[in-house]
């Protein structure tokens, strides 16, 4: 336990150092180039707003609303993407038939059809979850399809030789090989579900971080908007950590590129 924790400490130190540099450069450039605060607020003013936000009880309700939209869209969209991806990944015929439809549907900007979604799914969190899910869906589908196809032919033949059914081959080999791809998809899904939830809230919401951004913008409090954006980033990073941790635990057998050891 001691070894990893010192390693983690060092990593955390690097992180903090980098963060300090980034914020320092930002603060300095805002000052030097005299960037107007309403175009790009300084880190310090954003931090002040952040402190203010975190001190207000109401803020946590907004976080909760958006977080549930993000998680809802993430889970729903990922599940749908993995399921349809599995169907398409296992059947060339389905792939040929459905893939163009999926592309066609997914290239339709969700912002453009958001009003229709709102009409169907209501003005509450439902429509935001659906918008996020629709955006999240495709990366998982594409990664699942490719992942299933990445199972080596020999391994599948081995299982077939022992009379494995299609379903057994899927469970025993293809799914395992798809997992690293699926986890990549989930990382992308995090980013997109955050964006999706906010885009949904921009179309019309009564609460949530997207609503707060609009509200702050309306009040010309751009630093406040950025503070909310930072909270969104924080949510994204935490979700990424969770996904990474699950990934490492689940996909234990992949032996990735070795550190260039020096003996």
């Amino acid at each position, binding site marked *: 336990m001691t070894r990893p924790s010192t390693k983690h400490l060092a990593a955390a130190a690097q992180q903090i150092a980098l963060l300090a540099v980034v914020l320092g450069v930002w603060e300095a450039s805002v000052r030097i180039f005299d960037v107007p605060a309403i175009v790009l607020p300084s880190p310090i003013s954003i931090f002040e707003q952040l402190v203010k936000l975190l001190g207000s009880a109401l803020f946590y309700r907004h976080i909760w609303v958006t977080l549930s939209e993000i998680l809802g869209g993430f889970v729903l969209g990922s599940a749908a993407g993995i399921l349809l991806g599995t169907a398409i990944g296992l059947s060339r015929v389905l792939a040929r038939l459905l893939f163009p439809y999926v592309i066609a549907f997914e290239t339709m900007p969700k912002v453009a059809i958001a009003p229709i979604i709102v009409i169907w799914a209501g003005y509450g969190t439902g429509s935001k979850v659906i918008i996020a899910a629709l955006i999240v869906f495709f990366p998982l589908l594409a990664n699942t399809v490719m992942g299933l196809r990445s199972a080596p032919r020999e391994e599948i033949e081995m299982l077939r030789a*022992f009379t494995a059914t299609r379903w057994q081959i899927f469970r025993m080999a293809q799914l395992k090989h798809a997992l690293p791809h699926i986890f990549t998809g989930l990382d992308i899904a995090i980013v997109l579900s955050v964006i999706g939830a906010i885009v949904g809230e921009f179309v019309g919401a009564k609460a949530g971080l997207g609503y707060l951004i609009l509200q702050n913008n309306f009040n010309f409090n751009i630093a406040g908007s950025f503070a909310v954006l930072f909270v969104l980033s924080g949510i994204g990073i935490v979700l990424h950590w969770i996904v990474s941790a699950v990934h490492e635990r689940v996909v234990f*057998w992949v032996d990735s590129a070795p550190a260039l050891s020096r003996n």
Partner: protein
Amino acid sequence: MLSISGLSKTYEARGGGKTLALTELDLMVRRSEFISVVGPSGCGKSTLLKILAGILPRSTGEIELAGELLTGPSRHIGLVFQAPLLLPWLTVKENILVPAKIQRLDLVAAAKRADELIEMVGLGAFARSYPKELSGGMQQRVGICRALIHDPDFLLMDEPFGALDAMTRETMNAELQRIWSLSGKTVMLITHSIPEAVYLADRVIVMTPRPGRIVDDIAIDLPRPRDLAMHSNPQFGEYVMRIRRHFNSEGSLDA
């Protein structure tokens, strides 16, 4: 048990080129017979095995296995592949249990059998290791256990002892002979060791270089059970010599 007639196989390579791997192959194997297949590298031995396993489509010919036309993989076949082909996310024991899981056998009984097989191949300490943690020869032994777990009638083995040292190989030979004589399995063993082929088999099939055909089919008339002393039996030496001659005459370089 097995009857092959007019079998041929042509591979189509990427550039469009074709490789005739097997041609005009006819073969009959009786139930409980132990046959060895020898032939130069690249003559189509593995191709034949994959066709019999039902995982590679043939180009022409008919195959009958246990009275039925072969149309795909069969539960009665146990296979050892030329490469170990273990699943990296399963332990040694789990890998061995794969055919039992596929065929929904009684897993408690299968697990017991797996432990016995693991002991037999000398991997007792590694039952819970992952394939990556094994040496090449150890992986191959896991592959042998896997082929036996579901107690198949017909054992198809592609150079199963290729990565084993001389002594482990002799042990495995003895074990294979024991299993065969007790269970009455039909065995087809692909090997590149001519003495091994003769030592174990009732018949040795000799194949020509690509395109593979059967050039000789030698009944090995040596008493059973055979032990290591058999290697110094003059008749044994004659069989070995007869087979070697095929290789030399078929264009492999003379040493």
